[in-house]
């Protein structure tokens, strides 16, 4: 008998002898655990809040900052838009998009005048543009401890001047300085002085900004720039109280970026980083009313039921930060989020082949809203690349080989719009009749053009070597690799060799600043609803490190851009834009890929929801019906208590015979 086997065979009752203290402790622990388990038996993630109308929403990530001068991500903009109102706002219901007065009493007065300047000893007349903005009467900051007595004070025009000066303060590290740099007269000089001193001196004036009185603001631009009104509708130029910045940036306090104090309909109640942001109705919010007219079809959808009513409706808005895809979707299905997008893997379940909502969802009272995003995705060629940059036919051939429709079907559930040019639908100058001849996916024609480009069959006619191109991606994720593999397969059909280069984000950024890539995919989401925001991406002087990553440069395009930029919307402006798009289509610095629409699902209690591509102060328009929601919660939240009993019984049935047999055998 092997000696080593002996002790274990004689050992019995391993758990039995547990007596006294440890046993009681163990039992207490198990008891506590079971109790906790039972009392946790509901899946409502929110504390009960009786008598309040609360909107429950999700955010994809934590906002970077709630300092309006530092916002650069859509998530921060989403929250800031509710807390800070600017002079103008994106009108909620009308389409195409337009801006309307918010804090401003009316649209601005514009005046073009000529100023004599001496440049290199030559005197010339330069056109300038002066904007005059008038503020409404009843504007107050939100109540906050930073003000005397905690009461929000009246808003002055100088609070907007302060906000603009903050953009040009190197200490603030603003992401919005580019919007005013070179445009407001004297702001560059202000920034230079501030950069040299290490910080801005707020007592110094900016030449082009004047406040004749507390309600009037005059801004002089270095050239006519009608898009400036969009700048005045962004959180960057929302009035900021100097008291708030100084109070919260004082030593020992958490910082102004965590304590926004604005003039919007909602003020910040709490912000638990990476977890939840709660906004509450601001009692000092100005008199503001729900719009009485909207886009065609809005009335039928019930979007005008609340027309003329005082805003806002919701007492509080809770934003839960959810970075993974599954939890957000599941919370929506359980009714704990009022609205949700559709994760790609759930798309087929929710949406039928005809792009309608499936029955399972309509039965629950859920409705679908499809809206276009002001977004264009594309594959950019580097125009400074010796192979691609100088060879228009090659770029055209690659564009023809690219199969957007197939990509759309495979990866985007067929919901995207095949882009023909840089402008997405909904933007002034978008031409629905445009048919890009190089987006036709025609391999035969692509091969002809490739031969014309000097690479018949993908082989360099001069050297006899196969043409090889490098495709850069900015992420190592499976999704990015898969998408790149698809793109490259399209080009390989022409006999071209494709090489994938996976970059870290920093490496990728480095490549786009230095312009050391051949081709790479990218996308642009509008900052404001004007074609200039898209066409600027191909404007020659914006070559890297500027936003024109392709380094596309075309004299006619640049000239037209400069003209278009300073024009008001008109048939003439549209004609210029069409010409610019035609140049880009022919020159093919990008393979235009998609405009992706957004699909939003809403529960029946979620009223007045309408997607807006440029986030703004939308929360004040939303209303919910709490009783309907509570009924839904009750119907959904019924824990299944039988299942664990079954599982436990099964475990006992499985284990008992073995335990009994072994125990009796060893006793013997």
């Amino acid at each position, binding site marked *: 008998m092997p000696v080593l086997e002996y*002790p274990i065979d004689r*050992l019995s009752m*391993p*758990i039995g*002898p*547990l007596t006294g203290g440890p046993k009681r402790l163990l039992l207490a622990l198990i008891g506590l655990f079971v109790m*906790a*388990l039972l009392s*946790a*038996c509901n*899946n*409502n*993630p*929110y*504390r009960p809040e009786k008598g309040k109308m609360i909107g429950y929403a999700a955010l994809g*990530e*934590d906002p*970077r900052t709630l300092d309006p001068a*530092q916002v*650069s991500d859509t998530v921060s903009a989403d929250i800031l838009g509710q807390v800070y109102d600017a002079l103008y706002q994106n009108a909620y219901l009308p389409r195409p998009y337009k801006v309307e007065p918010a804090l401003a009493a009316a649209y601005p007065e514009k005046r073009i005048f000529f100023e004599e300047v001496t440049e290199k000893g030559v005197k010339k007349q330069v056109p300038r543009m002066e904007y005059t903005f008038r503020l409404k009467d009843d504007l107050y900051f939100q109540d906050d401890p930073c003000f005397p007595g905690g009461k929000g004070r009246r808003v002055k025009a100088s609070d907007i001047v302060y906000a603009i000066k903050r953009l040009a303060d*190197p200490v603030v*590290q*603003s*992401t919005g*300085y*580019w919007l005013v*740099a070179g445009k407001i007269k004297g702001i560059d000089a202000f*920034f230079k002085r501030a*950069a040299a001193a*290490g910080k801005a001196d707020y007592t110094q004036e900016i030449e082009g900004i004047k406040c004749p009185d507390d309600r009037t603001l005059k801004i002089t631009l270095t050239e006519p720039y009608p898009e400036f009104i969009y700048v005045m509708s962004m959180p960057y130029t929302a009035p900021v109280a100097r008291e708030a910045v100084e109070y919260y940036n004082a030593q020992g306090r*958490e*910082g102004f*970026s965590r304590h926004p104090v604005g003039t919007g309909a909602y003020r910040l109640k709490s912000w638990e*980083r*990476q*977890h*939840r942001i709660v906004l509450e109705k601001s009692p000092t919010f100005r008199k503001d009313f729900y719009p009485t007219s909207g886009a065609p079809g809005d009335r039928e959808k019930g979007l005008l039921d609340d027309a003329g009513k005082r805003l806002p409706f919701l007492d509080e808005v809770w934003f839960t*930060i*959810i*970075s*993974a895809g599954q*939890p957000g979707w*599941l*919370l929506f*299905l359980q009714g*704990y989020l009022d609205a949700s997008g559709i994760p790609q893997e759930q798309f087929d379940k929710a949406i039928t082949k005809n792009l309608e909502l499936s029955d399972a969802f309509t039965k629950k009272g859920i409705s679908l809203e499809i809206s276009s995003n002001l977004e264009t995705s594309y594959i950019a060629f580097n125009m400074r690349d010796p192979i691609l940059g100088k060879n228009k036919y090659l770029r055209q051939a690659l564009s023809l080989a690219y199969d957007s429709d197939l990509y759309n079907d495979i990866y985007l559930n067929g919901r995207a719009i095949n882009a023909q040019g840089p402008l997405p639908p909904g933007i002034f100058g978008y031409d629905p009749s445009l048919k890009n001849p190089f987006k036709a996916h025609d391999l035969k024609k692509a091969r002809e053009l490739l031969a014309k480009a000097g690479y018949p069959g993908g082989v360099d006619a001069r050297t006899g070597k196969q043409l090889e191109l490098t495709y850069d991606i900015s992420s190592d994720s499976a999704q990015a690799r898969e998408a790149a593999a698809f793109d490259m397969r399209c080009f390989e059909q022409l006999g071209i060799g494709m090489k994938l280069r996976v970059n*870290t984000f*920093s*490496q990728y*950024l*480095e490549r786009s*600043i230095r312009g050391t890539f051949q081709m790479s995919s990218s996308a642009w989401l509008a900052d404001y609803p004007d074609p200039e925001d898209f066409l600027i991406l191909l404007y020659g002087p914006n070559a890297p490190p500027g936003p024109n990553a392709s380094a596309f440069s075309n004299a006619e395009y640049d000239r037209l851009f400069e003209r278009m930029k300073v024009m008001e919307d008109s048939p003439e402006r549209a004609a210029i834009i069409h010409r610019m798009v035609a140049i880009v289509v022919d020159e093919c610095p990008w393979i235009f890929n998609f405009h992706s629409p957004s699909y939003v699902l809403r529960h029946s209690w979620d009223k007045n929801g309408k997607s807006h591509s440029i986030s703004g102060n939308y929360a004040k328009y939303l209303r919910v019906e709490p009783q309907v929601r509570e009924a839904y919660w009750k119907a959904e939240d*019924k*824990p*299944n208590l039988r*299942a*664990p009993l079954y599982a436990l019984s099964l475990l006992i049935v499985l284990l008992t015979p*073995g335990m009994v*047999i*072994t125990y009796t055998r060893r006793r013997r």
Partner: protein
Amino acid sequence: MFYYIVRRILLAVPTVLGVCLFTFLLFNVFASPEAIARKQLGKNPTTVQVKAWITAHGMDKPMFFNQKAGKDGRIHPLDSRFWNQMKELILFQFPESDYLHENVGDLIKEKIVPSLTITVPAFLLSIIATLPLALFVAYYRGTYLDRLALFICVILMSIVILNYIIVGQYLLAVVFKYFPIYGYEYGIGAWKFVLLPVILAVAAGLGGGLRFYRTVMLNEVRADYVRTAMAKGVSEGRILFKHVLKNAMIPILTTTVLSIPFLITGSLLLEMYFGIPGMGNLLLNAINNADFPIIRSLVYVYSLLYIAGSIVTDISYTLVDPRVTLE
């Protein structure tokens, strides 16, 4: 033992420096200061603005050794990016995050509690659950129960944690509806949100832990002193809990004490899927946003913790096993 500890602490210095150097190189060789500045300054910063950012962050200085004379006319060779950053960390004066514009020390203080509310209960519960189970399985060694347990263990070990999370979340929170799917509450209300991730963390670690503890127990019950004790008529329960368990503690201690520093690092996936605003989330977001001040601070803190953990493990050997002395 004193000299041993001093030696280990001295050895820790080059280790931590090396780790920090490696991280520094990773983030500074591949990305120029300009790239980092542009990443943090949003869509379309002006050149002047980029320059001002670089100067304000000391990124215009050389990487390691500064040979230029400073403002006082003297050369300060260590006035460089790496050494200035190291100086901050060594003095625990954490920098400001590039992306969030907040002090990293404050962020860590804020995030550490939610992380611990998951990792500590999961850690304790997995020991509490695994030890008796291991004794149980060890007792039934050789029977079908033992084989069944081992079989289940291997299955449990082969499943990646992400599957536990996705399936567990779906089954327990969506189908059976016992728990909230997602969320967190600071304070005592946290327990409701912590239960499910803790259960899943325990389940995910059960297979490996059980197999390991079982092996340890089996090695011990075969030892001579067990036979001696039995011959002397000591009760079986006493042998098991007084003698076997104590001796089995040495390998168990190694693994448990070594894993204590990781309690603070948090669990990346659990935090992400259950909405726990902890350290794992902080690090993940910092990496996504190329927020180097957070990354280098966390790397520094974690490497210190790891080294401290391994020193404590060594010391704990001497406490449980009188045969071990540290020299």
